[in-house]
């Protein structure tokens, strides 16, 4: 009797879970056939199969430019956020700083404040500095948006770091920099990498700030997609979306790999 009720409940719960997972994942999968359509419209089932929309994307200078633009912006902002993030995480995790929690909370606000506000505010700020229409403004703003993530992941890995190793390194004659590069950085690198990858994705996907701050040749990939979508939904957009998903999957795989590496290191 109880056995049965238990089974029914489990069955219900599992099917609910399956439905939710399907809801989360299926849309991404449905995109695959659509992006290979030979037709002119985003209809399903597709009239035929072809690579024409992919070749259109790859041969269109605008998409390529926007892609590289996004990469440059994402890499630069990630680098800046990581450098500041590592330093600040060290200070906040190891130092006895009064108001530590307050600093953490304040450093998290760029992630919480609606992007529209950040976009408008940065736009008005950089306009006064002659920096609108310049990659630097987007890079700096994206870096500010990424700092909370980087700070959190690096602080987490610093908390798991055994500081005796720093003493060991010093006792073996290593100076500050050698200790930093050879001991600390390799040990917390999974955390740094995870944070950096998330920061990269944040910047790479970011559209609101980019649309406020980018002008003309500084157009990022999401910005280009956005203006494309407003005009018409054509299969080229689906192809770009597909490429972005593949890209994200790749980055996610990197993160999962980094994570398993961190688990391995901490299980020594």
């Amino acid at each position: 009797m109880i056995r049965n009720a238990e089974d029914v409940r489990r069955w219900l719960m599992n099917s609910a879970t399956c439905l939710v997972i399907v809801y989360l994942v299926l849309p991404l999968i449905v995109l695959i056939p659509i992006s290979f359509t030979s037709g002119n419209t985003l209809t399903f089932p597709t009239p035929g199969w072809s690579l024409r929309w992919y070749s259109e994307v790859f041969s269109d200078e605008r998409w390529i430019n926007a892609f590289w633009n996004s990469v440059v912006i994402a890499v630069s902002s990630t680098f800046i956020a990581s450098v500041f993030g590592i330093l600040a995480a060290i200070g906040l995790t190891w130092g006895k700083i009064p108001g530590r929690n307050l600093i953490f909370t304040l450093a998290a606000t760029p992630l919480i404040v609606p992007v529209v506000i950040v976009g408008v505010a940065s736009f008005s700020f950089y306009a006064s500095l002659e920096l609108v229409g310049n990659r630097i403004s987007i890079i700096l703003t994206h870096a500010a948006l990424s700092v909370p993530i980087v700070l959190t992941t690096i602080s987490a890995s610093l908390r798991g770091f055994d500081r005796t190793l720093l003493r060991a390194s010093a006792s073996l004659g290593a100076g500050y920099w050698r200790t930093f590069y050879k001991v600390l950085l390799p040990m917390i690198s999974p955390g740094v990498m995870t944070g950096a990858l998330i920061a990269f994705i944040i910047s790479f996907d970011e559209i609101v700030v980019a649309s406020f701050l980018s002008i003309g040749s500084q157009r990022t990939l999401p910005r280009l997609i956005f203006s494309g979508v407003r005009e018409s939904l054509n299969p080229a957009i689906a192809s770009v979306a597909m490429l972005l998903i593949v890209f994200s999957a790749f980055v996610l795989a990197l993160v999962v790999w980094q994570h398993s590496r961190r688990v391995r290191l901490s299980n020594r």
Partner: protein
Amino acid sequence: MNDGIDVKSMHDRGRTPSQWKYVLCIAPMAVFLIVTFFWPVARFLFKSVDNSDLVSNLPRTVIALADWKHTDGIPGEDVFAALVQDLADAHANGKDGIVAQKINQRVVGTRYLVIKTARIAAKGGFAKEALRENVLKRFSKWGNIELWSAIANDLKPLTEFYLLMSVDLQKNPDGHYESVPEEQAIFLQVFGRTVWISIVVTLICIVLALPVAHAIVAARPNVARVLITLILFPLWTSLLVRTIIWMILLQGNGPINSTLQLLGVINKPLNLIYTRFSLYVAMIQVLLPMMIFSIVAVMRRIPVNLMKAALSLGSPWLWAWWRVQLPLIMPGIFTGSAIVFVFALGYYITPALIGGPREQMISSFIAFYTNKTLNWGLASSLSIQLLFLLVLVWLIMLMSRFVFLKRTEK
């Protein structure tokens, strides 16, 4: 960790200096965030009360209108002289457009009046004698007492005009606050709509996340890992891409409609997109993973035996869940809700692409006033509303943490 002395770093050469090093470590990030984030945002929020565009371009008028009250009737010669002189200067500096815009925001339909007056004033087109009469003859609108009181009411360095407007209030000529006419009262409604959409999204996320979280925690490690990766994957996919996918899926001749038609469930495509429904579908897909992970994080810390214990004590499953499991995962639900709610509040791209005109939230209005009508004061005031909501959520979080802590202490 021996003898508790490891709290000191390898470079500890005494107490105070080492702490300074840590402060130095934090300083670059602090300075960076202040310069690239806090200062720009503060500067932008200041625009909600900043009135310098009006005041600094009408210096003489400010003085001349200092003692004027709307009961005094149309101002006299000196005010007109001051105004004409100010507008002439503004035109020469290229500021008449901004002055006209600001005045038009207060009294609709006066933009060209100001610009044209400024143009003529700059050319010396008004005779010096009987200036007031001269101006009034050419532009009878300057004889409008409402216009004058609207200007005079707001000739101060800091104005509450935009803040009032953003909560559907205005100042009447006597200087009292009153509601704007009903047909203009939109912002509180948008505010309510934004909150409502966020609440609905949060609640649905909770309902959908609970079974998934249970399944993940109950599953074998390998299965759990697969589930987590499956949930992580959409989270890692561009928000824009996911919105576009929903646009494709939900459109009239999109996959969902064609499949349903193929199956003969419907004979005419359903109107799925550009509705509240499509907005919820797209937003929840984006935000649900965060809720799931918040709940899973808490559930993992709950001993599995608690539910077994409750069941062994003879309680029905649902009751046991309600009394034992739910209170323990409440902190996770709370954190997840706060995250989902806060993110939902700021949504802009998804409503813009997938919602109809009635699905637009505060963010859309902020962008509209920033880009289209260049009314930054209002955009800033609306941002303040949004930030106010965020602070509120944050305070609730703090308080709830306090409550939960107390409960676990008992």
